[in-house]
């Protein structure tokens, strides 16, 4: 497994790890920042500042994450394109489309949305009517408080004027001071009135209807401030209501001697008025706070909007890239697989998990690859077997070639179109043909001369259902007659289609000559024997006549007649035999004429009708064999000789048939009997002169038949008739 495969395998896990680390980093950073700011920032401001910074930090992390995701993918695409990885262009288009579709609308939405937000916030704070109402309300409230304070300051100053000459230091005067203060309290509608000698309390009265339970404490700071500034004002709380009690203080002018008196008055505002004033002021403050925090608010809204936009962008980019990867990774893997497989690596499998149509495609691809691999293995096995078979065939061919080259018989093979496949040396030698490049050439073209073309004719004959035929042929080669036996076999493949023919040629010239020599020796021996046989009775008759003559007996005449008769008979026998041989020797060459075969056969058969009871003799003349060019007399003799033998060999009930047909331009004559057949040992010598299985006669009948047929350039064969008998087949050329 190479690095790329490992990377691809663990890429998903790495992505989760990187994502997890990013999230962890983000939260750790957020926690760190929050802790830092909560410690360092003013506590009242923490929330606002942390919110802005937290939002900005989240946005920053999101921006960096999006940039990381996009740049990482762009970088990967650039690297893939640089290395010309298959599918990188397609992935570029897909990623660009997804990123474009996610980024552009998101950014446009953000720009448009932020402008809307900005305008909305501006319009919110630019609402002059609201601003005016709130500002005016605040001004009225402030003015009201100021007027109350001014009024009370004036009242306080009047009280101070009233009691200025009172001798506070004497206790006896205190009740009178108290009454005067009570009167002034009632007169000026005050709720609280007190006199201080600088910071020391002298006396104070309280309006029991005011709701105050204790004398309010103006505080030292107020008194000091009054001494310093001549007057002072404070707003204090009453019963928890902030700002309900208006405290005013006025001090005596500076004196050269003695302490200065300070009059402090208090007025409790109507609760409803106080509340309205407070709410107006607080409303104004709230509005002002919003105005002052407009920038922060706008920033917070924009940051929130930006955060949402970035989250959407991140999600859409991630989903887009994920979808792109879901599409491109299988396609890239398939392209890579195709490349690897076209390079011969059939072990390669696309290892991509997908549960959609691409998954089906990947599965089909892997199945196809597996099938290819199996087929390749089968082909390789077959190839090995083929190579081995070829090797065997080559060896066998070499053996066959060697055998063919060394075999005495000539072997010629042709394909189904007649082109020479093989021709061994014996064939070339027999047929006296030079060692030319014969293989592949048409046999008819090679052997176009009249003599050798006879062999071509034999080769092209219809071999019938058996696919075999045999024929003898005499060729005049180099001025010398040669006799060949040609055996033709049809080559067929396993389906039975004809693939060509093989012809085995044997030169029978020497054999025939030897057989003829042997036959003539046998004939001479038989002739001598035949001549010797009559000589003995002639000699005995002559010696008997001589003896009788010397004895002079009465029966001399009788013996003479008897002896002369024997001598005459034997001489006649010898003469017949000599005449027979003489006729065989003097047999004329055939004189071919147009012969009516039907007539010839019928005339011949008529000689044998009823000759042997129980033996049927009949003829079959093919419709295409009505006429033939041959020597009619000689051929009639052939038929008679063969019919003689057939009828003699056939015991009743039996049948002898003569059939004549034309086949492939040749005349085929068959004489079939159902007789006892010919012994195998006799078949080789059947046509030899003076050979006979009958033990009588001259034994020249079949020799004559053979000679006539040969002189008609034909052939004759004897073979067994099934189930019983013999068939003599004569083939005569008719062209």
């Amino acid at each position, binding site marked *: 497994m190479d690095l790329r495969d490992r990377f691809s395998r663990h890429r998903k896990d790495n992505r989760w790890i990187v994502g997890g680390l990013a999230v962890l980093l983000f939260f750790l950073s957020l926690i760190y920042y929050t802790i830092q700011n909560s*410690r*360092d*920032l*003013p*506590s*009242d*401001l923490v929330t606002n*500042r942390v919110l*802005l*910074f937290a939002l*900005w930090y989240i946005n920053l992390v999101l921006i960096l994450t999006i940039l990381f995701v996009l740049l990482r993918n762009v970088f990967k695409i650039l690297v893939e394109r640089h290395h010309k990885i298959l599918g990188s262009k397609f992935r570029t288009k897909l990623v660009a489309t997804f990123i474009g579709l996610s980024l552009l609308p998101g950014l446009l939405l953000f720009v448009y949305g932020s402008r809307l937000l*900005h305008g909305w916030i501006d319009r919110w704070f630019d609402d002059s009517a609201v601003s005016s109402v709130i500002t005016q309300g605040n001004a009225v409230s402030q003015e009201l408080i100021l007027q109350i304070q001014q009024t009370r300051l004036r009242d306080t100053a009047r009280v101070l004027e009233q009691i200025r000459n009172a001798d506070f230091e004497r206790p006896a005067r205190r009740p009178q001071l108290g009454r005067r203060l009570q009167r002034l309290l009632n007169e000026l509608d005050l709720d609280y009135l007190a006199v201080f000698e600088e910071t020391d309390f002298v006396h104070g009265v309280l309006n029991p209807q005011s709701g105050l339970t204790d004398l309010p404490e103006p505080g030292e700071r107020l008194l000091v401030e009054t001494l310093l500034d001549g007057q002072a004002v*404070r*707003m*204090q709380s009453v019963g928890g209501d*902030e*700002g309900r009690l208006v405290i005013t203080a006025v001090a005596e002018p500076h004196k050269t001697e003695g302490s200065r008196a300070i009059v402090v008055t208090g007025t409790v505002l109507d609760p409803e008025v106080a509340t309205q*004033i*407070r709410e107006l*002021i*607080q409303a*104004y*403050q*709230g509005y*002002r*706070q919003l*105005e*002052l*925090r407009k*920038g*922060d608010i*706008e*920033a917070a809204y*924009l*940051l929130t909007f*930006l955060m949402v936009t970035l989250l959407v962008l991140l999600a859409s980019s991630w989903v887009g890239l994920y979808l792109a990867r879901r599409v491109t990774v299988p396609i890239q893997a398939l392209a890579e697989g195709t490349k690897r497989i076209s390079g011969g690596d059939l072990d390669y499998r696309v290892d991509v998990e997908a549960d959609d149509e691409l998954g089906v495609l990947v599965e089909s691809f892997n199945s196809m690859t597996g099938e290819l691999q199996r087929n390749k293995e089968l082909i390789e096995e077959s190839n090995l077997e083929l190579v081995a078979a070829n090797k065997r065939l080559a060896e066998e061919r070499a053996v066959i070639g060697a055998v063919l080259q060394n075999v005495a018989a000539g072997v010629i093979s042709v394909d189904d179109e007649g082109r020479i496949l093989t021709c061994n040396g014996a064939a070339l030698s027999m047929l006296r043909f030079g060692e030319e490049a014969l293989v592949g050439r048409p046999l008819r073209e090679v052997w176009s001369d009249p003599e050798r073309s006879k062999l071509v004719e034999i080769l092209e004959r219809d071999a019938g259902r058996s696919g075999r035929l045999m024929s003898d042929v005499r060729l005049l080669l180099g001025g010398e007659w040669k006799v060949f036996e040609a055996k033709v076999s049809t080559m067929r493949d396993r389906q039975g289609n004809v693939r060509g023919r093989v012809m085995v040629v044997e030169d029978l010239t020497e054999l025939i000559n030897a057989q003829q020599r042997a036959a003539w020796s046998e004939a001479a021996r038989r002739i001598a024997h035949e001549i010797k046989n009559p000589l003995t009775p002639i000699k005995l008759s002559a010696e008997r006549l001589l003896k009788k003559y010397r004895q002079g007996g009465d029966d001399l005449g009788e013996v003479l007649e008897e002896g002369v008769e024997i001598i005459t008979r034997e001489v006649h026998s010898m003469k017949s035999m000599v005449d027979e041989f003489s006729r065989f020797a003097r047999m004329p060459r055939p004189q071919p004429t147009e012969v009516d075969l039907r007539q010839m056969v019928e005339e011949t058969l008529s000689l044998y009708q009823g000759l042997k009871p129980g033996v049927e003799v009949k003829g079959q003349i093919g419709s295409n064999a009505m006429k033939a060019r041959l020597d009619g007399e000689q051929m009639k003799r052939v038929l008679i000789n063969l019919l003689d033998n057939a009828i003699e060999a056939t015991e009743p009930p039996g049948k002898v048939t003569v059939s004549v047909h034309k086949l492939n331009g040749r005349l085929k004559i068959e004489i079939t009997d159902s007789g006892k057949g010919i012994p195998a040992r006799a078949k080789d010598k059947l046509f030899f002169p003076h050979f006979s299985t009958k033990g009588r006669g001259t034994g020249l009948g079949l020799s004559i038949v053979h000679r006539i047929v040969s002189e008609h350039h034909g052939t004759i064969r004897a073979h067994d008739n099934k189930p019983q008998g013999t068939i003599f087949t004569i083939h005569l050329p008719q062209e």
Partner: protein
Amino acid sequence: MGLLAALPATVALFGLFGSPDADKPHLSDLQVALQEYRVEVSFELVNGFTDELFERIQAGLADGFRYDFALSRDRKTWFDNRIDSTSLEVVAKFNAVTQEYLVNFRQDGKLVESRVVRERDELERIMTRFSRLPLFSLEDVNPDRRLTIKARADLGSKTVLLLIPTTVNTDWVQSRKFRIDSE
């Protein structure tokens, strides 16, 4: 040519964002005094109390400064000279009904003082001027060491380009070097 073309833009940007040092908020007169082993600091924040800040306070927002202090050894060749650090938050909040400013002083988050003032000048003064502010104890510090105090003020935050928040700080200022023995 490109450099010359970029020069006006650079100057314009500097003019836009830059400002003279004198107008920038800064700490001045950082003085150190030792009361036995206690370090007391006096300083003034100049140009820190702006109209904008006052306006925010006036509107009822709690706002102010945070002063950061660091006690360090005077060793220029060493990277970590800090002995101790502390911060002082000064946050003012205006009560519009009573027309008073409540100013809280928190050292390291702990409230150390609260003051109520009624005038802006006084408010500015107590928020920006400090005299003999006790900050550090030197009981555990080697008396032979030369020490120094560094201080800066955190003036809050602002937003750049409408949405980027940034903190606004003065530069760090450094006091004179001092030794415990020498005082």
